[in-house]
């Protein structure tokens, strides 16, 4: 455990690091070395205007809707399949090759194919989110199931529990920490998925906005949107971690639970 003062010291250093970086950026911007680096003050100036513009808010809504439609079912099915894979060897044998393939291939490469199948629209975006999140939840849930203490299963059996009860009252709670770690990873990946898929389409959502602003060389606005996307990613992860901490009171630091697999 670091002492409080060390923590404060680090915070101050982080602020210094940030300030120095921004100052350098400002100088580069003022020197007009490249259109890619406008002065940072100009970017900051653009933030409020961009973040409140109708175009931005529309794009944000589009992206959020896609996540809201695709992520929950993907998580739920992923957890269900993960429980089966973790608990029943034949299911594991049957699905392992497929899951491993999907976890080690560069999923972005599938986007052109998804566009052929689902068209240049929301369908493809949803499909992208699903393939980005489903398998990662499956492996982490399955790994969680495998952490089940066989002694607890035996204890429950000795009190007369059948397979269903063992599944619900022992296996599921045992799997929770890794399951949540999987959900945490999946949330980050869902954001990546929606942005990249929208970028490829180039029209809708925040990803589409990034492409259009880039194409128009509207660099200040572009930075404002990128900044928002990054912060949104950070806040979402924090939110998931907060839920995790409340849901797993017996795990001392749930956010430190290393996911079994993060994916490429």
């Amino acid at each position, binding site marked *: 455990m670091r002492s409080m003062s060390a923590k404060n010291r680090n915070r101050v250093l982080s602020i210094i690091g940030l300030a120095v970086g921004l100052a350098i950026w400002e100088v580069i911007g003022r020197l007009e070395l490249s259109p890619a680096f406008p002065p940072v003050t100009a970017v900051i100036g653009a933030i409020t205007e961009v973040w409140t513009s109708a175009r931005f808010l529309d794009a944000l809504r589009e992206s959020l809707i896609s996540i809201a439609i695709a992520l929950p079912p993907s998580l739920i099915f992923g957890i269900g399949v993960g429980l089966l894979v973790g608990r029943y060897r034949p299911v594991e044998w049957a699905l392992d090759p497929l899951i491993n393939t999907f976890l080690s291939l560069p999923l972005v490469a599938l986007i052109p194919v998804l566009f052929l199948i689902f068209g240049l629209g929301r369908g493809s975006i949803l499909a992208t989110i699903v393939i980005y999140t489903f398998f990662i939840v499956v492996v982490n849930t399955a790994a969680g199931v495998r952490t089940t203490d066989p002694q607890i299963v035996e204890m*429950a*059996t000795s009190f007369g*529990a059948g397979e269903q009860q063992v599944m619900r*009252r022992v296996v599921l709670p045992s799997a929770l920490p890794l399951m949540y770690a999987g959900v945490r990873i999946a949330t980050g990946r869902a954001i990546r998925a929606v942005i990249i898929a929208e970028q490829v389409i180039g029209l809708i959502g925040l990803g589409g906005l990034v492409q259009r602003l880039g194409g128009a060389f509207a660099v200040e606005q572009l930075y404002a949107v990128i900044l928002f996307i990054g912060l949104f990613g950070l806040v979402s992860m924090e939110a998931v971690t907060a839920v995790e901490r409340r849901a797993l009171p017996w795990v001392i630091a749930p956010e430190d639970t290393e996911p079994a697999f993060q994916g490429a």
Partner: protein
Amino acid sequence: MIEIEGIGRRFNTRDGGSFEALKDVSFSVKDKEFFSIIGPSGCGKTTLLKMVAGLVKPTAGRIDIDGQTVIGPGEDRAMVFQQFVLLPWADILTNVGFGLELRGMSRKESREAAKPYLEQVGLTRFAEHYPHELSGGMQQRVGLARALAVGPDILLMDEPFGALDAQTRQLMQEDLMRLWEVEQTTVIFVTHSMDEAAYLSDRVLVMDTHPGRVREILDVPLPRPREESTRRSPVFNELTSHMWHELRGMMGDPTLPAPE
């Protein structure tokens, strides 16, 4: 009445052969009796107890309880484990009620029904703590309360105090005595400690090993209620040194504590 008749158990080994853990074990345990099993490590005590619990199937012989053959776990039996085996994600009260919950009560009912048992083991104060916040002795009290809460006729205990330090162990023995006198259940108690066996039991089964067999069954002619002074009586000492000689003859297991 528990009748164990010609019980045997073979396990398959990795090299394709099989290994006889228990052979032709027969004895019976009377209702409300406190019956201990002692024997060298690996002689099959846990296996035997799990067979009575219905967790492991015998490969020979059978076990009858009040005339009915055991084919699986049943509501008349409850087990207490050496490693406590509490649910780390549930608080103490839920843990105590877990057996009841598995037998059909709702979480709320089972927690309510668990309260008196938690009180019996003196942990009411810790109802809403989690297992990792409790000492080993307290955790085993929870394990005991969980077993008692389902109102079993037979309590099966596998070295329940084996993971505890000597002082805690002695306190737990006294508490168990007190509880057993109130609850009036049959107890089958596996232990490595000769003191413990002599202090608690009505009878002690001494097991032989390779394969596990009955060596002898000792009566414990000590008056009840047993007290601290019981441990210093001549009968007690005679019993423990008798057991010690028997066990030492079987195998030089250095983990067996010598009698004082």
